[in-house]
């Protein structure tokens, strides 16, 4: 705000404000305000017109009162009057009041718009700026509608002043962000790009913000900006610090502009033109060189500005990921920062290094800093920096340094902050598995993990240990011995007891030879922990006991005694009681042979076969989900071996076919995990989980124990989240991307054929809800991305693409979403769809984001189907049959006869047919059982009339009920597509 001249001092306002400031209590303040409001009301009411000065003064007071948090319900008119004043201060106050207080649905908006229009067309640059600022501050849809056409004109007009251009660029940016659909691209866009060449640095800075935003949406349209930006950048970088005068900030030439230029370049791939590229590389080198130069000033602003450019340059280098030389130099530069005094710099360096570590050129260079990073983890005072250090360690880990890193992380875990422990545990578990060379090391690590941070070890982690131990003969003995030793500690974590119980139950015999760990000693050790454990663990221990009876007949008497005790056989917990009773009976009735068969050792999980199966499934379903490894190179050579991929697949295969090798030691009576986490993790869980209460009702025979291994329905988990690198991903992670089979994704699509709202997709991290509406050939879809974790998603980015010929059939416009999704927050995205002509495929939605440093990549089909563009048509019977006959050519008809997969409930059928979008015609078909519908599909190119007839044979036995669905339309592809879509619905 420019200083107000003495005459305009507004003494009354100053007095009022000081009165308010001097108020002793809230009550006194309210009293003073009430008094002032009454005064202003009487002034505004007064019949004599107020002069501009007092109007301004009172509007100012109202504004101040409003900003103190009180409601203001008058004075708007006076403020609008101020807009037409010719005095700068009065106009300014008017605009200020309006941008703070006037809401968009006010009836005054027309008057305001008029005033703004006048100011925009005036030749006075200050007035124009004020008007532009007001538009930007309000930024409502109405404003955008009124001025979106005008502002670009001002922006590119030749005679506009620089300051106005600046304002116009920023104002347009604001409008574009608020309502991108209203800012139409036109011939001005190409001229905006040339603003990069403007003489005035302020204009360039403002314009570049606008261009960056616009080009992230329409990269092609702004392609030319790359070379301009590069040349601008090189001019700045190579200029002496004094050349730019006003735009030199503490000896750094135009730091803001440089950063913005570098950021703009990050929207594009490396320039193809050799000359441009050479120039850019030169610039980047210069920036890196400058970082080495001694600072020209000791002021913190100087180094901040310099580093800001440097970091932006480094992220550009990482973005290009094609200049090994630069990457290594960047890495070295960051390495210097790792030990810098400034905490922020260390943080930024670690963060950038995380991304550098995933580049193949700089991975080795990053690894050289391992000692520094470990040191940072240990000695850093700031927890967020420690977190970054942990992330970086995780990212730089490979086979060569895995042991060291895992050991460091483990030792750090003992002192780690509670907030990051769980994440650390998962990371350790993942790394230990991924890079395990010998599995005894793996077992040691995980057991250590449970010992150090038992509370933070999730189920999946210890499930995984058991799976691996069972699958690998060579570690079983070692595992049994280690577990036995670990259990001897006076206080064990419950997870340790679980692992111990399971492993000793399976492989206790391998260490029974040693008198120190004789069967009875083993049993007593386990039983000493029994009473301290929760119910599920006790259930597991009981199963371990029965296995003991099989392994060591000599313990039979002791164990039976335990099972017979009242605390077991009459336990108030149904599950425990049942197990005790059943196991007791089993052990006393069954002969040793039967016992040996029933309680046979767990067979290893079939790996090879199912990994092929998983691959097969993946090849089939290209559209539904693709999961990328963050760093492609990790895939093959660095991977620990094929077996992990296999394991994930076992889970999948077990989930689909209840294998006879079912879990004898059904651990969990109620499988809470299986329903809730449809992810790779839950697949694992399922191997161990029983199908709930059904298990308990089964008898004491094989069938009873083999109570089906119900996996959560495969359709619930069509997506498996990114492997390995995601923090929360359970330890199956390192597997190859387990893309789900295509049927699931289509099913998902089918779910939305007859409805417009619902949950499109959900996994552990993300939930996507959908809400859509269609009119004529236009549709609008709202996608709600919900972050289910407590950590924010960074670089959240979604794209909608129309593969193949869909591009010419469907016009899809999307609004960008915020790149940051806070933990627990939900962001909304609007997608506008225009149907150009009829289509078959659905557009693909691709979601990418970083969660705790790991890239997540999810692809889905957007549920846009041709039937969404139906307009219902009512018609009489005669009409219908006449049209029906007109469409009698064989290619116009599509017919399908199919079995009913749901019941034939009339109401449900009707609801579905209405949901399809057609009109349901009553009393048309002579047979009242049949359903007849009519509708017109609206596309931009043409309208396709469509008639539908659905004939159920309701009388048939359930199970043999069939439908005949006939569709006739004026276009053969439409008939076929609608017929296909609909056939899946009944």
């Amino acid at each position, binding site marked *: 705000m420019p200083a107000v001249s003495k005459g305009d001092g507004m003494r009354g306002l100053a007095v009022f404000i000081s009165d308010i400031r001097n108020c002793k209590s809230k009550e006194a303040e309210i009293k003073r305000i009430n*008094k002032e409001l009454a005064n202003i009301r009487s002034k505004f009411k007064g019949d004599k017109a107020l002069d501009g000065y007092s109007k301004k003064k009172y509007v100012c007071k109202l504004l101040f009162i409003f900003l103190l948090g009180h409601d203001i319900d008058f004075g708007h008119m006076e403020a609008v009057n101020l807009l037409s004043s010719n005095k700068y201060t009065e106009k300014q106050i008017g605009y200020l009041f309006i941008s703070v207080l006037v809401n968009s649905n006010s009836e005054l908006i027309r008057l305001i718009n008029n005033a703004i229009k006048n100011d925009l067309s005036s030749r006075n640059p200050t007035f124009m700026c004020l008007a532009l600022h007001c538009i930007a501050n309000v930024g409502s849809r109405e404003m955008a509608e009124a001025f979106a056409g005008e502002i670009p004109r001002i922006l590119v007009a030749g005679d506009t002043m620089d300051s106005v251009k600046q304002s116009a660029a920023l104002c347009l940016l604001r409008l574009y962000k608020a309502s991108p659909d209203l800012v139409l691209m036109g011939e001005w866009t190409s001229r905006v790009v040339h603003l990069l060449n403007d003489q005035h640095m302020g204009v360039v800075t403002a314009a570049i913000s606008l261009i960056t935003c616009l080009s992230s949406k329409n990269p092609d349209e702004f392609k030319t900006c790359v070379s301009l930006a590069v040349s601008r950048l090189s001019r700045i970088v190579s200029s002496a610090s004094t050349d730019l005068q006003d735009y030199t900030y503490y000896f750094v030439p135009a730091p803001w502009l440089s950063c913005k230029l570098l950021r703009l370049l990050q929207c594009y791939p490396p320039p193809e033109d050799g000359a441009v590229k050479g120039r850019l590389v030169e610039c980047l080198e210069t920036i890196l060189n400058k970082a080495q130069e001694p600072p020209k000033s000791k002021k913190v602003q100087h180094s901040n500005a310099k580093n800001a450019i440097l970091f932006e340059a480094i992220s550009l280098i990482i973005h290009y990921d094609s200049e090994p030389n630069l990457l290594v130099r960047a890495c070295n530069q960051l390495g210097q920062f790792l030990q810098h005094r400034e905490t922020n710099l260390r943080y930024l360096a670690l963060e950038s290094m995380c991304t550098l570590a995933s580049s193949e050129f700089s991975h080795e260079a990053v690894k050289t800093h391992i000692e520094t990073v470990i040191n940072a983890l240990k000695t850093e005072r700031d927890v967020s920096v420690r977190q970054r250090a942990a992330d970086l360690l995780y990212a730089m880990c490979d086979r060569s340094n895995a042991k060291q890193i895992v050991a460091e992380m483990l030792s750090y875990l003992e002192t780690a902050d509670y907030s990051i422990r769980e994440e650390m545990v998962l990371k350790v578990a993942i790394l230990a598995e991924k890079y395990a060379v010998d599995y005894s090391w793996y077992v040691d690590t995980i057991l250590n993990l449970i010992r150090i941070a038992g509370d933070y070890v999730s189920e999946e982690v210890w499930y995984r240990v058991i799976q691996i131990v069972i699958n690998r003969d060579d570690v079983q003995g070692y595992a049994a011995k280690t577990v036995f030793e670990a259990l001897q500690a006076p206080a064990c974590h419950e997870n340790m007891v679980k692992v111990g119980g399971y492993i000793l139950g399976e492989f206790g015999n391998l260490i029974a030879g040693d008198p120190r760990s004789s069967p009875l000693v083993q049993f007593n050790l386990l039983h000493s922990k029994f009473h301290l454990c929760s119910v599920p663990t006790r259930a597991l221990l009981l199963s371990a006991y029965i296995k003991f009876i099989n392994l060591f007949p000599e313990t039979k008497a002791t164990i039976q005694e335990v099972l017979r005790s009242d605390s077991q056989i009459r336990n108030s917990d149904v599950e425990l009681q049942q197990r005790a009773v059943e196991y007791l009976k089993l052990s006393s009735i069954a002969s040793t042979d039967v016992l040996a068969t029933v309680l046979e050792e767990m067979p290893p999980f079939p790996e090879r076969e199912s990994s092929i199966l998983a691959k097969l499934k993946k090849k089939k379903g290209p559209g539904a989900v693709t999961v990328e490894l963050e760093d492609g190179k990790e895939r093959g050579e660095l991977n620990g071996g094929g077996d992990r991929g296999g394991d994930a697949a076992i889970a999948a295969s077990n989930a689909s076919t209840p294998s006879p090798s079912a879990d004898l030691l059904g651990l969990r009576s109620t499988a809470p995990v299986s329903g809730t986490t449809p992810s790779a993790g839950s697949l694992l869980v399922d191997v161990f989980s029983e199908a709930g209460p059904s298990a308990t009702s089964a008898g004491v025979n094989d069938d009873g124990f083999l109570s089906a291994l119900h996996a959560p329905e495969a359709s619930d988990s069509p997506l498996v989240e990114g492997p390995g690198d995601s923090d929360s991903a359970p330890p199956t992670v390192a597997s190859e991307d387990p893309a789900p089979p295509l049927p699931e994704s289509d099913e998902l699509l089918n779910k939305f054929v007859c409805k417009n709202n619902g949950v499109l997709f959900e996994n552990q991290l993300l939930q996507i809800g959908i809400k859509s509406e269609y009119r004529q050939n236009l549709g609008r879809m709202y996608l709600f991305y919900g972050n289910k974790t407590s950590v924010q998603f960074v670089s959240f980015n979604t794209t909608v693409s129309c593969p193949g010929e869909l591009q010419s059939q469907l016009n899809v416009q999307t609004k960008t979403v915020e790149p940051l999704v806070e933990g627990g927050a939900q962001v909304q995205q609007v997608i506008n769809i225009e149907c150009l002509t009829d289509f078959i495929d659905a557009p693909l939605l691709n979601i990418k984001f970083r969660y705790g440093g790991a890239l997540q990549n999810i692809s889905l089909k957007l549920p846009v189907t041709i039937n969404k563009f139906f307009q219902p048509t009512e018609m009489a019977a005669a009409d219908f049959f006449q049209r029906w006959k007109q469409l009698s050519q064989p290619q116009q008809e599509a017919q399908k006869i199919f079995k009913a997969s749901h019941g034939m409930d009339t109401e449900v059928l009707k609801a579905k047919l209405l949901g399809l979008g057609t009109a349901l015609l009553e009393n048309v078909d002579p047979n009242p059982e049949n359903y007849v519908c009519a509708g017109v599909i609206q596309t931009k190119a043409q309208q396709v009339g469509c008639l539908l007839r659905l004939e159920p044979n309701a009388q048939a036995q359930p199970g043999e009920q069939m439908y005949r669905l006939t569709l006739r339309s004026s276009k053969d592809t439409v008939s076929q597509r609608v017929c296909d879509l609909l056939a899946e619905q009944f």
Partner: protein
Amino acid sequence: MIGGLFIYNHKGEVLISRVYRDDIGRNAVDAFRVNVIHARQQVRSPVTNIARTSFFHVKRSNIWLAAVTKQNVNAAMVFEFLYKMCDVMTAYFGKISEENIKNNFVLIYELLDEILDFGYPQNSETGALKTFITQTGIKSQSKEEQSQITSQVTGQIGWRREGIKYRRNELFLDVLESVNLLMSPQGQVLSAHVSGRVVMKSYLSGMPECKFGMNDKIVIDKQGKGGATEEAAGKRSGHQSIAIDDCTFHQCVRLSKFDAERSISFIPPDGECELMRYRTTKDIILPFRVIPLVREVGRTKLEVKVVIKSNFKPSLLAQKIEVRIPTPLNTSGVQVICMKGKAKYKASENAIVWKIKRMAGMKESQISAEIELLPTNDKKKWARPPISMNFEVPFAPSGLKVRYLKVFEPKLNYSDHDVIKWVRYIGRSGIYETRC
């Protein structure tokens, strides 16, 4: 078990902080400030729970008193204690204000040490406290005096010391009532109750045994049983009996006797004490009737006429009458005409305030006002808050009468007749509102 006690000024600065138990951390002080005193929305609940810690607060002018606890305490006990604490502070240094608290902080800490012990409330009787917590310099007490204090504080009658002597045995009794009313515009009583206190100031020698009697319905009925019917009993006693809904007594009253015989007998503390508190809801004498008339003339004008009628014996005089007529929030000007008293539009309170100094019973008076309004673009209609009233009348609106107060002092040989007794009735308005 109060964990701690804090006193804040209106800005939320801590004036007094006393922590009695370890479970209350230093951050509790800030938690209350942030969540209650500086809360964005005004906190109306007197009990606030923040992070498993309960804060009980009362506000005296600009001062916040907050008791903090982590345990599940009796909230009524805590508030009773807080009120008592306010009484004690008032007795020691007058009005509770920031300045007074700052000037007396040593005294306050001393008091807090005495009246709360590890969070358990102790003797909070002002009279007793004043014997050993004094505002003047410490005078060296003799052994005897010290032992006397000890026996008194720990003894059966902690609220009165022995050996008090007065030349004139005098006794003052005040019946203070506040009458609360909500009335519909048509004159229908929507809710009404009287909450009253009997305050006693005694200057009696020795350890007098007192007995207090009033026209409590139950007592009167009981006496009446011996004679004829209830009606007759009522007549015989000369006045109507009243039904008391609930009452509480000062700790000196022997509750066992009250429960058994419904007689109120006690040894009073020296000086002032609040003998009892009670509440009645039946047969309330409403001293004033307010008849409002509000007419909206177009969008920009409002006409208000209010008539008040006094409804008690013409010989009595009501005082300090104040009628408060709320005005709409978009008032831009007011013209008032009234027959009696003074009326003024107070913009800072959004109300017309009409004051009358004195008014006899069975009279009426009226005021009329024209309110000009400023048209606003706000569609909200004016909520028409009720018209409220303040007054003071020299009788008890509940109808309570003191029948007797007998004093016996067996040791000192002065009889009931020698005591000079004064009784005074004051009825005040509580929330006395009429909708318009």
